[in-house]
């Protein structure tokens, strides 16, 4: 049996689902960020797999995977800076306890 596009798509769908589960159920902001990273990785697998099997020679998938990795680095840096700032002011990084803007 050959490894085809569907195999990669299945792995990426599962990874995406796991990341989503993490985002929906975690209280800790950093853990939510980890879920987002998993989802971004799943998207990258899809991009590169489509590049390989649907449009070989185009390289658009690689380019966008690289851009996503860059943006993931930005997102992690800004997100973690925000987490640190929140922790300094509120002494918690549980997103369900950060509700001072509500009232």
């Amino acid at each position: 049996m050959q490894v085809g596009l569907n195999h990669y798509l299945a792995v990426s769908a599962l990874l995406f689902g796991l990341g989503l589960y993490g985002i929906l159920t975690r209280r800790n902001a950093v853990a939510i960020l980890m879920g987002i990273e998993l989802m971004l990785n799943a998207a990258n697998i899809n991009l590169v797999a489509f590049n390989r099997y649907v449009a070989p020679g185009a390289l658009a998938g690689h380019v966008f995977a690289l851009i996503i990795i860059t943006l993931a680095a930005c997102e992690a840096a800004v997100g973690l800076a925000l987490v640190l700032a929140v922790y300094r002011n509120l002494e918690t990084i549980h997103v369900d306890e950060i509700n001072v803007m509500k009232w």
Partner: protein
Amino acid sequence: MGELAAFIILAIVTLLPAVVVVTSRNLVRAAMSLIPSFLGVTGLFVLLQAEFVAGIQILIYAGAIAVLILFVIMLTQGGTGTALRQVNEQQLVGGLVAGALTIALLGLLLRTPWPLVAGTLPRSNVAAVGGAFLTNFILAFEISSLVLLVSLVGALVIARREQ
């Protein structure tokens, strides 16, 4: 045969630690499990003949983002956070939604007849990717570098302690 074996091993290396990432009560272990997961994805990229993306994946994800996450977990939470409740009350709903979405995605992705094209990628795709960045994708390249700069400055401003 060999490719399939490698794929199965890499898929397991990617998915099993990912389960730990989203379920472990110990946040440092969760962050630690990100690393094998990222490395498994790197292996999948190598199987897909995307060596340059794979190299950048090790460097940025496993080398930088994982360290950043570990760092922030160790600075906040008083360490592992095992004494605290780590999940909210949406566990059931969240699990159902994520499971339903995964099944929908699997069904959709696997049943769509993708127009497969048999072809080969450029042999050394480092130079090819570099060329693509500076020709067809120059706008995306410039914008992402701008975003990088802005987020660098932004992260510094946000994380800096007020004097």
